């Protein structure tokens, strides 16, 4: 790598492949007395007169995090391209100061609209926040569910077994117990003792917690009669719902009540919000059929079909969660994280549809809503205050009371109108509507905490604390944060963060089935579960140590995954038992530390970051560069496809990639990417350990040029992880990602030093992720910074 390219790289202006490189030659140097003149004469031809970059030369604007000293050192060593000796010493220092001041510093980039604004911006709710807020808003007016005979959190479902008399007329309850899952083949017999085999019925009741937001599918398989009710009110009667009942329960999600003399499979799909529980009820009857069986399966997002069971299914009874199906457009991600920074026609349509949905839902549930007994006006005012996440002004209160109670169409029409008004109001749709610099009210604190930790609105206890002035001190707020962190909604949000950091949702893992016949959908779903289990194991452990994510020498494997990934010989007789087929038997499995290093060598990521038939050191290297060691890379301005067929088949993947990127232009970036990517060459395209490729020993060793100029020898993934866990830029990148995910603002919005302060405290706190989450929530809620020194800030 020549010096010019090193600079490009240092400035974060690296590209994978750059066309027209040769046009950037040595710029003749005239006498110049000021740094500005030097810049214009010597640098502007490639970097642009305003530092904006020049097409065909150095294409991107300046961007990076080096100090002036570091910049000066870079210029001295590498600039101008081809003759760095022309600009050294004081002159290099002066040019560095000039570039820093004019183009490079965060303030300079902010002036030019190239960096985050440096203030807390007014943002609208993101699509995800919007759905959560509507769900929890209605949830706060929902009456509590009846008590379960087996209170939460027992796994499984409450099962009531009945003897029938005449088709599905359940007459006598014989047994109530917990069934961990519904997957029974009764054949010609009775389900339990004391019941005749000819006719019986069973009712299962409980709740399902959705681990993440997305589309869930449910499937019933039976040759008898069964129906699945899901996420409705009134699902907890013990007896079979009488056919001619009032009808308040409504239609089942899956209706397989009427048989056809054969085994039938019926399924349905439903969109659910993560971190919330949903009421579930399954009814079954056998009448005169020769045999009986019933199986309830599901397919969660990122999962494969399996029998519904596990930790997400509990015997607890819960209330309905309202989920709007309004078609929200994707949120802006141009800044690297989702945030509500734009409004569009599609968005307003969706927000309107969500408001209409919510009004319908409230009108339908009207008599059963809490607080409605105090009158439509009072109800509407309370609903608006909850939606706005603050008390109403006297004027607002009057308006909502009038809207709801003064409608000529009656109470229903009035409340619908008030709901629509509240959910289309900017006070609902936007966050941070207080004027700049105004001190945070306690309701503002509550609102920010709920958004940061749950992407939702304050719950009853949090709002009550704000009402009573109990969100004043740091201790009071922190106690709320700790309480909120235990809520499944916080876990769902944290899970989402790791899915983004590790890019879990971004790639197709399917592989060439002739090369990797075992690598099917079920394995991919298990791997996804495995990586989630690993992350959760680390994050919610006492130490909650970020370094463990990178350095752990273990994986969570079930028997299906063990057959593929366990490097120890599988002992005879270790065949998976029946429960293993559902993939529910994950265990912590340790490996040789030289062969296993946290997420870096997790087979999910190794498979995602690979071609369908071979490894991809480039994909793996880019991921490690950006996400693990925290260096910036620009996307390549010219895409060069890797075509395996163009290479001698006897070459190793490492040799092919080395040849493909051998051009000095490519090496500007690939000198960084390739060594990191090569460190994982011991893992094939599905993440299995291998000693050789094409009968040649794997060579995973190389030298990684770190961003401080030090050459780091790496022999395996663990060396990369070891480097990352002591690298400030890796820590900074992690903290920034987490902050943006939680707060939807850049840390610089709060202060230029905040990121550095959080990074130092993170390091000093043994890299405790949970404490970092607490700190981010506190900072965002109070706009308050912990004390910081100026050591690490830009000079």
């Amino acid at each position, binding site marked *: 790598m020549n010096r010019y390219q090193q600079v490009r790289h240092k400035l974060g202006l690296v590209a994978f492949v750059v066309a027209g490189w040769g046009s950037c030659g040595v710029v003749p140097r005239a006498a110049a007395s000021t740094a500005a003149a030097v810049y214009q004469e010597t640098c502007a031809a490639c970097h642009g007169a305003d530092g904006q970059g020049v097409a065909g030369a150095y294409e991107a604007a300046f961007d990076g995090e080096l100090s002036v000293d570091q910049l000066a050192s870079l210029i001295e060593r590498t600039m101008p391209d081809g003759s760095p000796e022309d600009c050294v010493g004081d002159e290099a220092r002066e040019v560095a100061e000039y570039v820093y001041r004019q183009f490079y510093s965060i303030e300079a980039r902010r002036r030019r609209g190239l960096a985050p604004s440096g203030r807390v911006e007014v943002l609208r709710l993101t699509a*995800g926040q919007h759905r959560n807020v509507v769900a929890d808003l209605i949830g706060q007016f929902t009456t509590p569910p009846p008590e379960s005979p087996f209170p939460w959190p027992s796994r499984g479902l409450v099962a009531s077994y009945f003897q029938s008399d005449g088709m599905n007329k359940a007459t006598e309850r014989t047994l109530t117990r917990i069934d961990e899952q519904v997957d029974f083949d009764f054949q010609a017999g009775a389900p339990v003792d004391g019941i005749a085999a000819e006719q019986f019925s069973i009712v299962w009741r409980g709740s399902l917690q959705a681990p993440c937001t997305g589309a869930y599918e449910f499937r019933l398989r039976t040759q008898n009669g069964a129906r699945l009710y899901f996420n409705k009110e009134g699902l907890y009667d013990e007896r079979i719902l009488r056919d*001619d009942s009032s009808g308040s329960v409504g239609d089942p999600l899956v209706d397989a009540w009427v*048989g056809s003399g054969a085994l039938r499979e019926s399924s349905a799909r439903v969109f659910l919000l993560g971190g919330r529980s949903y009421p579930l009820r399954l009814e079954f009857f056998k009448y005169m059929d020769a045999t009986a069986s019933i199986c309830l399966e599901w397919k969660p997002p990122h999962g494969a079909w399996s029998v519904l069971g596990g930790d997400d299914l509990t015997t607890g009874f819960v209330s309905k969660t309202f989920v709007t199906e309004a078609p929200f457009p994707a949120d802006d991600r141009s800044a690297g994280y989702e945030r509500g920074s734009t409004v569009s026609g599609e968005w*307003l349509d*969706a927000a*309107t549809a969500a408001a*209409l949905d919510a009004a319908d839902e409230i009108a339908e549930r009207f008599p059963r809503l809490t607080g409605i007994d105090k009158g439509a006006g009072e109800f509407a005012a309370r609903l608006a205050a909850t939606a706005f996440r603050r008390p109403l002004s006297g004027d607002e209160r009057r308006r909502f009371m009038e809207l709801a109670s003064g409608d000529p169409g009656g109470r229903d029409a009035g409340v619908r109108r008030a709901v629509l008004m509240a959910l289309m109001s900017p006070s609902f749709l936007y966050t941070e509507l207080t004027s700049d610099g105004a001190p945070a009210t306690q309701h503002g604190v509550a609102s920010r905490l709920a958004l940061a930790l749950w992407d939702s609105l304050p719950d009853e206890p949090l709002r009550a604390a704000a009402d009573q002035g109990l969100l004043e001190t740091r201790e009071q707020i922190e106690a709320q944060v700790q309480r909120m962190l235990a809520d499944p909604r916080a876990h769902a949000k944290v899970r989402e963060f790791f899915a983004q950091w590790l890019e879990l949702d971004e790639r197709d893992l399917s592989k060439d089935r002739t090369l990797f016949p075992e690598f099917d959908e079920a394995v991919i779903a298990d791997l996804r579960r495995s990586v989630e289990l690993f992350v959760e194991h680390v994050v919610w452990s006492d130490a909650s140590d970020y370094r463990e994510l990178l350095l752990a020498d273990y994986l969570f494997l079930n028997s299906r995954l063990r057959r593929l990934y366990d490097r120890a010989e599988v002992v005879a007789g270790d065949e998976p038992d029946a429960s293993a087929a559902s993939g529910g038997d994950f265990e912590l499995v340790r490996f040789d530390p030289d062969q296993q290093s946290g997420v870096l060598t997790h087979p999910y990521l190794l498979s995602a970051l690979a071609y369908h038939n071979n490894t991809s050191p480039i994909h793996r290297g880019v991921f490690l560069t950006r996400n693990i060691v925290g260096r910036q890379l620009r996307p390549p301005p010219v895409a060069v496809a890797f075509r395996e067929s163009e290479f001698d088949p006897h070459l190793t993947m490492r040799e092919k990639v080395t040849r493909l990127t051998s051009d000095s232009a490519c090496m500007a970036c690939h000198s960084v990417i390739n060594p990191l990517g090569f460190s994982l060459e011991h893992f094939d395209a599905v993440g299995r350990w291998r000693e050789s490729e094409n009968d040649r020993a794997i060579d995973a060793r190389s030298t990684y040029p770190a961003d401080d100029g030090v050459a780091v020898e790496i022999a395996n993934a663990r060396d990369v992880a070891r480097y990352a866990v002591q690298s400030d830029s890796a820590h900074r990148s992690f903290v920034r990602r987490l902050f943006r995910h939680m707060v939807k603002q850049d840390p610089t919005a709060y202060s230029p030093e905040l990121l550095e302060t959080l990074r130092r405290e993170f390091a000093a706190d043994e890299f405790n992720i949970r404490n970092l989450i607490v700190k981010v929530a506190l900072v965002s809620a109070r706009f308050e910074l912990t004390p910081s020194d100026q050591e690490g800030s830009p000079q």
Partner: protein
Amino acid sequence: MNSPMSDRRQFLRHLGVGAAAFPFVAGLPSVRGDEQQVRSTPKRLVVVFTPNGTLPDEFWPQHFDGAAELELPPMLSALAPFRSQTLIVKGVNNEVRGDGDNHMRGMSCLLTATVLNPGNIQGGSDSPAGWASGISIDQEISNFFQSRDESRTRFGSLEFGVAVPNRADPWTRMCYAGDNQPIAPIDDPGRMFAKLYGGAASRRRVAGVLDGVRDDLRRVAGRLSPADRRLLDRHMQLVSELEKDIASAESQAALLHPEPEIDPEIELVNDNTPAISRMQIDMLVNALANDMARVASVQFMRSVGQARMNWLGIDEGHHGLSHEPDDNADAHDKLRRINAWFAGEVAYLAQCLAATPEPGERGGSLLDNTQIIWVNELGKGNSHTLVDLPLVLIGGGAGFQTGRAVDFQGTPHNRLWLALAHGLGHEGLAAFGTKDFCAGGPLPLA
């Protein structure tokens, strides 16, 4: 994260806003303008179901196929105004056998004319059964209409229910999209209203709060820095665009016939049945008048339905009464009043159709081009017979010769459905339901 329905059209359909609404709107005569002229005269079908058999002695006229004018028995006197457009058909049997009791087969084989699947649902006798194994004639005809440009409508068919209990089994379903695919009638006028006119209601509600939203936006924007205000300014612009979209959708979707006034919050209880029946019929006629559909059905209760017709001064359940022996004069009187009431509802439907002019230059009324057929799952309640189904046809849709009664002396009802399909233009239909029962082809009714 992707939204559950990333397709914006879904929302637009809901709200009836924008270009996406146009395919539906374009189906309306008011919009099609000149194009309407080239559309052939529409043909329509309305099936009315009432349960538990009839009273043969009160139902059948004295004379069949004579030159004399059709004589309506007193129980059917409500139909008198439409006598010349009425055709009573006797001697048509539901000959489908197999699993299920006669009520089940009466109901689920009525419009499908094919066997029930084996299953796990059992009534008082016979073997258990499941859903019907084929499509019903109304859906067959609707599919035919929907397959052709000149007869395609927004919904194709609409299934109305009146006091249908909330259960799904072979006694409660007569319409089938295909084998094992029952179609649930909508018996909640509020739900049907939302389906037919929901977009308009939502539009009005949204339009009603936009001024308030604008006030709020102004109030809030006033406190913000210029940079933050930009977002809210754009929002304000979008609110104005939404308002314009709503206004233009409102004019585009203007119905030829304004939607009927109904109380969408009516409680679905037995005692409200007469009011619900009229609401459903009003909406049905309005939907046909606005060409939202050309096939519709109204299902009163269900087979074995136990409606207690307090509004007729009858406290017993309908099905129970229908089991009483012929010599129970009280039950006989009550069943006569029940069936006379049903005849009155059919007459109300015919009257509404007759009172609505056929759109365009063609003249005549909707009834002239609409075939009403009133059906029942049994010939007689206390015998559970599937012989001599009580069948009354009113209107001109199928081009049958009316103002008479005809007795076919016992022939499978498959042939009646063939005649109906052919009369409504679906002449390519060679057989329907169980093939063996189609011998002889369509019943000669024209």
